[in-house]
């Protein structure tokens, strides 16, 4: 089936079965590899993108469920003020190690700051506990979110 997806402000035509996860359309069909595959079961958050402004796990988002909603990925999140502030904070606080989960971490954090500009520790726990980091950068992720939010 053919779908037109609005990704990072640009329409993209793809011809895949409707139940194919958005993750693989982004990565394999469209070649946007910034969004990562981690678990395939919405357990790790590495594949987090925004659909209609909400964070979703693209590994469990069938492409036919996206419809006209705008899709934003890590490649474009820096164009949003929260995304830019988070990327800057990530660099200032040297958050990354292997870096593989960080696309998803930043996408989840950007969604958090959009709705909750001054998050508490509990807000951060709630928004970020779906994102796994095996390098253990959590302490710096928390600090960087606060740094970006100015709290």
């Amino acid at each position: 089936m053919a779908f037109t997806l609005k990704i990072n402000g640009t329409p993209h035509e793809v011809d895949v079965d409707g139940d194919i996860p958005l993750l693989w359309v982004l990565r394999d069909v469209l070649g946007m590899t910034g969004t990562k595959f981690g678990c395939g079961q919405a357990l790790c958050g590495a594949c987090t993108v925004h659909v209609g402004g909400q964070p979703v796990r693209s590994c469990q988002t069938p492409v036919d469920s996206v419809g006209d909603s705008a899709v934003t990925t890590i490649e474009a999140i820096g164009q949003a003020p929260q995304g830019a502030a988070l990327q800057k904070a990530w660099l200032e606080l040297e958050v990354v190690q292997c870096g593989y989960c960080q696309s998803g971490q930043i996408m989840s954090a950007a969604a958090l700051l959009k709705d909750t500009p001054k998050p508490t520790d509990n807000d951060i726990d709630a928004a970020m506990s779906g994102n796994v980091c095996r390098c253990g950068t959590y302490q710096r992720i928390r600090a960087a979110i606060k740094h970006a939010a100015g709290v």
Partner: protein
Amino acid sequence: MDELILREQIVDEAAMSRRAFLQGTGLLLGFALTGASTESVFAAPASQVVENELTGTFAPNGFIRINPTGAVTLVIPMIEMGQGVYTSLSMLLAEELEVKLDQVQVQHAPNHALYVNSIIGIQNTGGSASVRAFWTPLRQAGAMGRNLLIAAAAKRWNVDPATCRAKDGVVFDASGSKHLSYGELASAAAKLPVPPAAIVKLKDPKDFTLIGTRAKRVDSAIKVDGRALYGIDTRLPGMKVAAVAISPVLGGKAKTVDEKAALAVKGVRQVVNIDEAVAMVADHMGAAKKGLEAAAITWDDGPNGKVSNADIVKQLEEESKKPGAVARNVGDAGKSLAEAAQRVDAVYQVPFLAHAAMEPMNCTVHLQKDRCDIWVGTQAPTITQSLVAELTGLPKDAVTIHNHLIGGGFGRRLEADGTVLAVKIAKHVDGPVKVIWSREEDIQHDMYRPYYLDRLSAGLDAAGKPVAWTHRIAGSSVMARYYPPYVKDGLDPDAVEAAAEPPYALPNIHVDFVRVEPPGVRTSWWRGVGPTHNVFVVESFIDELAHAAKQDPVAYRKGLLGHNPRALAVLSLAAEKAGWGSPLPVRHGRGISVQFAYGSYTSQVAEVEVAADGSVKVKRIVCAIDCGMYVNPDTIEAQVQGGTLFGLTAALHGSITFKDGRVEQNNFDSYLPMRIDEVPVVETHLIKNAEAPGGVGEAPTAIVGAAVTNAIFAATGKRLRSLPIDTNSLKSSS
């Protein structure tokens, strides 16, 4: 750092153009060089001389390239997998070369003897050995480059080189009025004879301006906006993507595969059945996964279909009753034990552990008649190359490993099984194919940290001092499979590291190792390897002895560390910073551990709270570390934070178990990672001194388990002798 993303392309294009130019001349060239070589680290290969004459690029050794436009490229011998090695090794080079980190581009080294890690003996990244092995060679390489550039400038100015100096990529004369950039000097410097490394004078550490600073990572920018390319991100013209189902039991094979149903899935191109696994080759991973499901594969389990954890443990219990290969024997532990005033005995067990790195196993292969190209993130590129050559029948130099950033290594990528499987599949596929394991395949077909069973006995004198110590370790030997020459008389030096030589004064000690290989289970390196289990055992047992002697755990250890000032110093620092001895609420406790491993001294204090339902909250970890001279304190703090959480995750949650030959865990809901709402703050206190550099990446992983279980003992009186922590055993009886 756009260059980092492009490095594959740069290397390939450079190699190709040079290869094309010199085709038929019989010369092997620069980055295309592969295979064994006896050249020392500092010999500029013949190819580089050719390259220098061709392009004017200054390449005095394997690590530095400066071209006439002024671009400085540092070739980094060890792979970046999060530990910060692209930054720390660049700092060693840049310090002596006199360039700023933001002036350089980083490129990963190709396979070549120039890039062997001298501690490990091959071009492997592991063992917390990168800074330790390259501390001197990279400084020498940088200094050699600086000296030649200065010499080229001095020659042009007709002055004594000793009167010139270099800074930030520019050479200045004595007055400072004349200056030439490294780019302007590259062609001239490339024509100068390269001196032997040994005569190159290194900077006095007191003059360091980069080493020892919190320099920014060189790989951060590309990791916050999706530009960084890992092996799994490989894209090639005409490439297919394959999902794979591997026999759930080791040694089993596919019995039935519904190929018709699989091929009916849109986007599926081919079904490859190699018995041990079935690959679904498709246009994209979504179709490939769907095709695998449609194939409804059934399996013949083969000889390992009945393997269970209970049987594996029973085998260890039996075998560990027999004596093993002796790791250390000082004094007469048997006699001292018999005569001791008090005797303590214990049996410890630790489970199989998976790596579960965030980037699942993957490998892209393009197998052609006369060459094979492999795109993968690997900690062991030369081993991988040899195995691919063997498997394809190609000569080694026809196999090119395009190494990539790794999305978490932890030892998993020291193994080439993922590449071997991908090549077996690629033999049946026309054109390039990227094989990606699902998370379930990744966890269920890992090569696991071995299950170990340890038997310990100690004898205390009337004052509570240990006069006898015996420790028998039983488990799989990773070393015997991976580096057989390192195992002598049955003794695996990794399996006994940090057990054969505990930091304490133990006048009568006997430590031995019994190799027991579990059937149907593949074992391997796991962040911290031997010490991850040994430090847990030794530091728990010494805590038991302190308790038997009715002494404070810190005071007891201090009494046994009088001869070991660096261990005593980290222990004292961790205890002091943690507020050891200050009062805590009921069912709260502090525990301490100390270790010497990977060339570094480390001590941790954990503070825990154990709820009435037995659940454990680790509230705080204080870590003191003495890793000698260090490169980047911020990287060390990051490694202490991350390494601690890696070990803490294992202590709290980590266990791989087998039933009917199958691994019972399969994703992050059954093999649990720690998450942000669960982790404690980790504090790092770094000791500064002039000792030889030690390793950092694995030290906090190995040490944290015992600190936590000792804290649980302090909080509850319950001694945990196995991992992961059994919260059921910690329920409050009141």
